[in-house]
């Protein structure tokens, strides 16, 4: 049972954080090589996080979930993040379809432990805390789990460089991360593929024991305000056989956001 919680915190930042921050901030491979390549796995991940750092971020997301039986559903949300890895706060507010409009998730990330999460449901006029042991469940019918929405600091994992291989035609480092505190994660380990040219995450495989249970893939990498950002992200739940595609639109970094809008109290506002 403990192994279910062994989730690589690093995956956190990768998942949505990386989903959005994806891609470290390298503007050019030349610049990277001029500074000298990192020599170990942790340094690579740290550099990747550093290059994706911004004081805030905002985007509009389109989520399309494709079930194994062929059924599809579509949702839209607005994502706002204040701060960076390890100490950020995130608000995810659904805007469509109409029946889920206003459902809002607040994530308060911590550098040394799992995040705190609360969800506001307009129909009930109440917020509900998402307990740590509940975060392996799917987030609102998507293939992301609540845990996948967290961003976690580089120091919450141990890393091992597994080698180098090409993913989608780009050479990547393959790095395994395991959480230092296994009870904070559903995953036993995570394997990350980080592009050597941009330090952007391109793929993340999350394991429970020896099985890959979720696969996150980043596509359509763009340099936005100096940060490599994947505008298309696909999360595959390999056990269910379902896929959620997240398309990012109107991505902005370093936008002015108010600290007081990232509180449990602020969830009530529309």
């Amino acid at each position, binding site marked *: 049972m403990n192994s279910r919680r062994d989730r690589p915190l690093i995956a956190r930042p990768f998942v949505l954080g990386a989903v959005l921050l994806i891609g470290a901030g390298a503007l050019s491979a030349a610049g990277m090589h001029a500074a000298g390549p990192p020599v170990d796995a942790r340094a690579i991940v740290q550099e990747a996080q550093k290059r994706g750092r911004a004081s805030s971020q905002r985007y509009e997301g389109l989520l399309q979930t494709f079930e194994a039986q062929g*059924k599809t*559903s579509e949702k839209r949300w607005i994502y706002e993040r204040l701060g960076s890895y390890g100490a950020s706060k995130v608000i995810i507010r659904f805007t469509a379809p109409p029946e889920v409009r206003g459902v809002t998730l607040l994530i308060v990330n911590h550098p040394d432990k799992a995040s705190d999460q609360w969800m506001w449901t307009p129909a009930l006029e109440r917020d509900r*805390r998402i307990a740590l042991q*509940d975060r392996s469940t799917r987030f609102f*019918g998507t293939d992301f789990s609540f845990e996948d929405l967290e961003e976690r600091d580089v120091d919450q994992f141990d890393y091992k460089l597994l080698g180098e291989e090409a993913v989608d035609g780009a050479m990547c480092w393959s790095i395994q991360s395991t959480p230092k505190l296994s009870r904070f994660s559903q995953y036993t380990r995570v394997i990350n593929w980080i592009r050597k040219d941009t330090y952007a995450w391109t793929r993340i495989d999350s394991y429970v024991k020896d099985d890959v249970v979720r696969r996150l893939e980043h596509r359509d990498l763009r340099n936005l305000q100096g940060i490599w950002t994947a505008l298309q992200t696909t999360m595959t739940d390999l056990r269910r056989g379902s896929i959620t595609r997240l398309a990012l639109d109107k991505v902005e970094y370093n936008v002015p956001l*108010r600290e*007081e809008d990232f509180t449990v109290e*602020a969830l009530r506002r*529309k």
Partner: protein
Amino acid sequence: MKSALLAAVVILGASSAAAQTASVSGFVDGRLFGFPQTAPNDAARVIGDGLFRSEIVLRPVEWFQFAAGLDLRANSHHQVEDRWRLDFEDRGVRRPRAAVRRLAATFTARGITLDVGKQFIRWGRADIIYPTDRFAPRDYLNVIDTDLLPVIGARASVQISSETFEAVWVPQLTPSRLPLLDQRWAALPAEAAAFTITDGGSEIPHGSQYGLRWRHTRSRVETALSFFDGFNHQPDIAVRPGSDPAAVDIVRVYPAIRMFGGDIALPTDKLTLKGEAAYVTSPSATSDEYVLYVIEAERQTGEWLLDGGYAGEVVRQSRVSVVFSPDRSMARSIIGRASYTVDPRRTVIIEGAARQSGDGFYAKLQYSQAMKQHWRLTLTGVGLGGNQDNFLGRYRRNSNGSVALRFSF
């Protein structure tokens, strides 16, 4: 207050063109209830109900938000008022045809939030039974399928780190809407058959209500303490002699109460333990004095969300023989709820409560399916049973099935 709100509407209307954000949402909902059995006071077995609900939210500047909502209703069983008027107070015996559901302005600055107007204020953490939720009256025209009613007032809150302090002032009582005397959810006792019963109306008290709440949200535990001084929105029932010896008047009396409450949520490795309790006193010594509490355990696993527990009551002073209080009447019960997400479009919910004495129970099974982006079909079956002298048992002829179709926009 009304004029202030109207002024806000005008001002916002003028500035809406420049609004930073504006959204309109709502739904049209049609329901059909079927009751296999008639009730002694109600022969209707099929009831149709329609609701249009819409809400507009404007946020012209970051520190200000305005929300307005409107309900339009229709019903085949005279549960909606006959006349057309725009209701603001929600004090009628029947549901109004047109009602302002929300009309509130929200100001935020430096961590302080002020909500003024007609709004929803929820306290507590428990599910199914709500001991500390004193500013949340409900529509009980269908006792098992209730809807929240808004209150008119002001709410100020400030969040400092993990502490939130909240103060609420409500200038007038919004009572819960009780089952209609001539309909099945009134569930009068068997002795009532010997009398002609008339609605003697409501004695709605004048005066304001206020409440204070402190909430603490840390990683390991969430707690809250609350205090309320005002009136019970669920009434005591006074039975008074009618115009002739065989007649009695039923009068709804809303007693002054004070409540000292608290709630807690404690996540453990396997479960989240939740508790909520309220000690309710009657300053005028005219109503009961009691402790109502709920203990629950919650667990989400896979596509299941499981919640079960026990609701209890300790009566310290019993002064009233008849009360209408679903929360209290369902105490001393085991309660439970399970929801299963079949896929992003389909959910199944099972909910129930059973008295520990075994003299009353209810169970609800609901299947809901979204169709495309706007439509949702919901099928519900409700079973009720028990003894005539039990709150739930009185409704044993009210088991029903319903089908609801909703278009959201």
